């Protein structure tokens, strides 16, 4: 590591996504090239410009009790579900319930709360709560508005709830940078551990804003695919006939900890969280800088932060959202950042072709996928890539999953957000 001796490792993974209610089901669907995109079953959906999205495969109502759900926005419920999976996956003990004997033997490891942090992002926050509460207010008056409306609509709500669940007192944070939000959350979590402010950090992202207003507002930007007759084939990064992104929802959470802390408790290490790099385009509020300079800077800064060389990178999980301009611009940025030779040797995948675009949850979900790609040595293929764009000249994995060579390997996960936020996170295979 370039700046610090502290190595940060990943010890737990959790996710609830359009492909499955946990990491295992999501991963097997990714390898099979399945799509989580479906036509929406809303009344009056025909009046919307976009009539499909990638909703979570397992509704939170199947997992959490209704009393708990009354006080959680859907994005917060999804985050809590993903966090619980990650926490148990890391080998930590479930939190004590009311009435449990605090002195009794615990089913898993226990962390000092002052050494436990949370960094959980949402790009949009509690949109469902804000809009539904406003409907209640207009129809029934202020007294019928839930007293939990504010904590449900605030974008840091998920971070707060997860922090309470696990007694995290080292700091609870919620970085907001649109579709880069949870990539930044992973980077911030790495920094918390390197700086010595925490030994363990629960980090990730969540989003749930599949609401008619979003279909209208992203639709009005002409940012989303309008392939209403073939929803499953709508998200098609790098394909000649791509026509925009597909809105997704879900959450992904990782447990990061110092290698020393993980080894001391004998935890399984799934990957090294090597570093992150950031840049601002300072160009346009929604359009990416067409030169790709900002994206390339983020990747190069991530390499420097991780203490790695371009040649160490064998794989990129691209931001690639299936927009006509964005996908190819990112490929150019990869070439600028890593050099033509390295760029042509590595594999590229774009898993939004299957999950849709989770906005503030995307960086975390694609981090989890990148970690699994390194750990399992398998690159999930880009779905719906039938006729690659003429400008695509890197090795995009399609058709079947691709095997990665054994041995040391590092991979970049890119996330770029409206506002010109660019973040690249690097993971390395654990030895």
């Amino acid at each position, binding site marked *: 590591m370039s700046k610090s001796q502290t190595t940060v490792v990943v010890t737990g993974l959790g996710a609830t996504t359009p492909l499955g209610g946990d990491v295992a089901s999501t991963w097997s669907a990714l390898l099979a090239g399945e799509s989580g995109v479906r036509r929406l079953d809303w009344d009056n959906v025909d009046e919307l410009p976009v009539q499909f999205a990638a909703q979570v495969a397992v509704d939170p109502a199947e997992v959490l*009790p*209704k*009393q*708990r759900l*009354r006080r959680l926005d859907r994005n917060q419920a999804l985050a809590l579900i993903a966090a619980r999976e990650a926490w148990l996956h890391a080998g930590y003990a479930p939190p004590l319930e*009311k009435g449990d004997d605090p002195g009794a033997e615990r089913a898993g490891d226990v962390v000092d709360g002052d050494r436990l942090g949370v960094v959980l992002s949402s790009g949009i926050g509690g949109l469902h709560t804000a809009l539904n509460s406003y409907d209640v207010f207009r129809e029934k008056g202020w*007294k*019928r508005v*839930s*007293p*939990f409306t504010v904590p449900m609509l605030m974008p840091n709500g998920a971070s707060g709830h997860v922090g309470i669940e696990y007694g995290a007192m080292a700091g609870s944070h919620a970085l907001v940078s649109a579709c880069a939000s949870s990539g930044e959350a992973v980077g911030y979590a790495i920094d918390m551990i390197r700086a010595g402010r925490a030994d363990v950090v629960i980090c990730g992202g969540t989003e749930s804003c599949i609401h008619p207003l979003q279909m209208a507002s992203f639709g009005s930007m002409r940012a989303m695919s309008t392939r209403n007759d073939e929803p499953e084939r709508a998200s098609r990064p790098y394909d000649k006939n791509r026509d925009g992104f597909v809105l997704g929802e879900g959450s992904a959470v990782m447990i990061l900890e110092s290698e020393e802390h993980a080894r001391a408790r004998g935890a399984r290490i799934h990957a090294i969280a090597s570093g992150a790099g950031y840049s601002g385009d300072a160009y346009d509020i929604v359009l990416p800088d067409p030169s790709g300079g900002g994206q390339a800077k983020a990747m190069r800064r991530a390499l420097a932060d991780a203490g790695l060389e371009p040649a160490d990178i064998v794989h990129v999980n691209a931001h690639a959202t299936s927009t006509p301009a964005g996908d190819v611009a990112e490929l150019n940025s990869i070439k600028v950042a890593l050099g033509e030779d390295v760029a042509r040797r590595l594999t590229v995948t774009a898993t939004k072709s299957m999950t849709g675009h989770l906005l503030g949850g995307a960086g975390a979900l694609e981090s989890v996928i990148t970690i699994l790609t390194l750990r399992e040595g398998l690159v999930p293929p880009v779905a719906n890539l039938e006729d690659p764009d003429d400008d695509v000249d890197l090795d995009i994995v399609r058709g079947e999953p691709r095997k990665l060579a054994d041995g040391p390997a590092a991979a970049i996960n890119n996330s770029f957000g409206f506002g010109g936020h660019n973040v690249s996170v690097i993971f390395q295979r654990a030895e």
Partner: protein
Amino acid sequence: MAEVATEQQILDGLAEIIDDIVGIDKSEVTPEKNFIDDLDIDSLSMVEIAVAAQDQFGVEIPDDELRNLKTVKDVINFVQNLQQQQG
């Protein structure tokens, strides 16, 4: 509401609401129980419960009164009194 509910009807209705909102088993909700000390219900949840109770029993519970309703029996008495006045 012209009819005045019996104590048992109000208790049953209240227990149903409390179970729905905070997930406390209906059998736990008995007249002598204090909402905060015995049932561990926080103030924001009490607001939700009061709103649901107003809808169910057809009475208005002003915020000033809500603060004085400390036990299940307090609510039962309050609802019965109001219903009698309205009836």
